[in-house]
């Protein structure tokens, strides 16, 4: 094809235009990285890399900034939401692929994907108006009463149950990422060859044994890729948590305390940053988030590609 492409001048220019359009993706990525680094150079110069990442300071008045409280908040909410979301998502995938009668497969699949289409701000607002009161009036007092006095575990459930805290934010985040994980797991499960499953049934395996010993091992790469992808999404989610996390720059051990993630800090403080070092530190935070999520997403993509190659063989 390349030969015909070079002969015609119109064709030549069309190919160049499409090439430029597709290179825009690379330009965006390099551009974002370059701009974020240059905007945060002031903060990088003042706080360095290690010190910024390990300092718990976040004090606009004293102009002293560190990212640790934000990274901590991001990590805790992300991990907690994954702990809730992964079993549910895999359960959904098993239900759709193995258990559900055929006429239900389509509608439930569509319903799960609609859940993924709802914008995150709707989740956030719903969390603030509906979930947060339920949490503060019923769930959190119950958790505090049940686990609050248990040694070690009790540390997680101390403080006033306000409903604006790590636990509520993580629950909303988990509802948001369940659809992603579920639909990727479902697609991976579906790739298990029917012959392999049938031979397991033929030697007398129960349905669950087929899922556990045939389908899951066969599709683990894809499922794992889906989980890492959800992790990447959860890291960068802003509006779903901005409503219900508070904006508390302290490291807390209790899940019933307010916290701050990188995204929530950016959303709340970016437009109000009134001096250069403050703004530069916020850009620095955005840079940390960009690098973190880019690496996570690249790892997810790597596993999904490996899974794809394995199944297509």
């Amino acid at each position, binding site marked *: 094809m390349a030969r015909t492409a070079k002969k015609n001048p119109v064709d030549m220019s069309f190919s160049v235009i499409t090439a430029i359009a597709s290179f825009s993706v690379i330009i965006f990525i390099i551009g974002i990285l370059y701009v974020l680094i240059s905007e945060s150079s002031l903060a990088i110069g003042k706080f360095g890399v290690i010190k910024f990442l390990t300092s718990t300071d976040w004090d606009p008045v004293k102009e002293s900034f560190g990212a640790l409280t934000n990274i901590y908040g991001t990590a805790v909410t992300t991990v907690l939401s994954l702990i809730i979301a992964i079993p549910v998502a895999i359960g959904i995938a098993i239900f759709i692929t193995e258990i559900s009668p055929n006429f239900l497969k389509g509608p439930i699949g569509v319903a799960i994907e609609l859940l993924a289409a709802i914008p995150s701000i709707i989740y956030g607002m719903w969390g603030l108006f509906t979930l947060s009161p339920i949490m503060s009036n019923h769930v959190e007092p119950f958790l505090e009463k049940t686990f609050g006095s248990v040694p070690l575990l009790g540390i997680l459930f101390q403080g006033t149950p306000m409903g604006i805290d790590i636990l509520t934010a993580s629950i909303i985040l988990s509802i948001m990422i369940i659809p992603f994980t579920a639909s990727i797991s479902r697609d991976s499960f579906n790739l298990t060859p029917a012959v392999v499953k049938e031979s397991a049934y033929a030697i007398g395996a129960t349905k669950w044994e087929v899922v556990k010993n045939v389908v899951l091992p066969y599709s683990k790469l894809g499922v794992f890729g889906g989980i890492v992808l959800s992790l*990447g999404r959860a890291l960068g989610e802003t509006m779903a948590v901005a409503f219900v996390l508070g904006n508390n720059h302290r490291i807390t051990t209790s899940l019933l305390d307010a916290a701050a993630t990188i995204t929530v800090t950016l959303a709340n403080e*970016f437009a109000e940053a009134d001096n250069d070092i403050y703004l530069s530190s916020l850009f620095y935070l955005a840079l940390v988030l960009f690098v973190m999520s880019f690496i996570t997403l690249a790892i997810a993509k790597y596993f999904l590609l490996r899974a794809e190659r394995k199944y297509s063989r």
Partner: protein
Amino acid sequence: MTREQKRKIEGSIALSLSTMAAFFGLFWLVFILGDVLVHGIKALNLGLFMNDPAPAGVEGGGLRNAFVGQLMITLFATLIGVPIGVLGGTFLAEYARGRKIARLISILADIMVSVPSIVIGTFIYAILVKPIGHFSGWAGSVALAIIMVPVVLRTTEDMLSLVPWTLREAAFALGAPYYKVITQVVYRGAATGILTGILLSIARVAGETAPLLFTSFNNSFFSLDMKKPISSLTVTIFQYAMGPYDSWHTQAWAAAFVITIFILILTITGRLLVKWRYR
């Protein structure tokens, strides 16, 4: 208990847990959607679309400025993002088909789809807001366009790849240059698929809030000027829901209702198109 019984019991426990998980997922969908519908319908009235916001804390007023602003930001984002995405996808699926560079860009685009949208907001702030000195509707549109490009690009690439190669060969055999083959044969064959990609990308950005917070910002007055800060539904929802007034909360529910319905219609239309075309 025999071994068989144990295996059966273990199996039924695991399977009923999976079933419960599926209904747990459905439960949230019904809960969230139901809540938005119930609160939203109660708050809907004609004045919402006809009036601009009342001063803070005063009852009444509407969100006309936000509806119009949202439409303008999304429209211009579509006008910027869709051509770049479609052309870029064309390059990957046609001129660079099978090359390493196509593979690389495709993978990077997949990663870009999930990059935190708030980071893109900070990027646009640095290049379009800070140098100019004030927030603007254009900045918001460009931020959304950057989110759209990888989505449209990837679906276009996939859809063009589905068009059989023999179809192109038939056109080449008639002596058509490649650009004519692409625009008159390949695009026609993949039109429904590309349209679906565009619809889904609009659905994706129409609900975006984070990249608008410090690009298009907000404006409590009616404005059609894309060079000035402009109001959007999503940012208004954020501001109103976090605000202290009950009338604000009611209007936030109404706005949430409108935007959710809009996005669900786009998503369902997209799915039906694919089903109808590629069944």
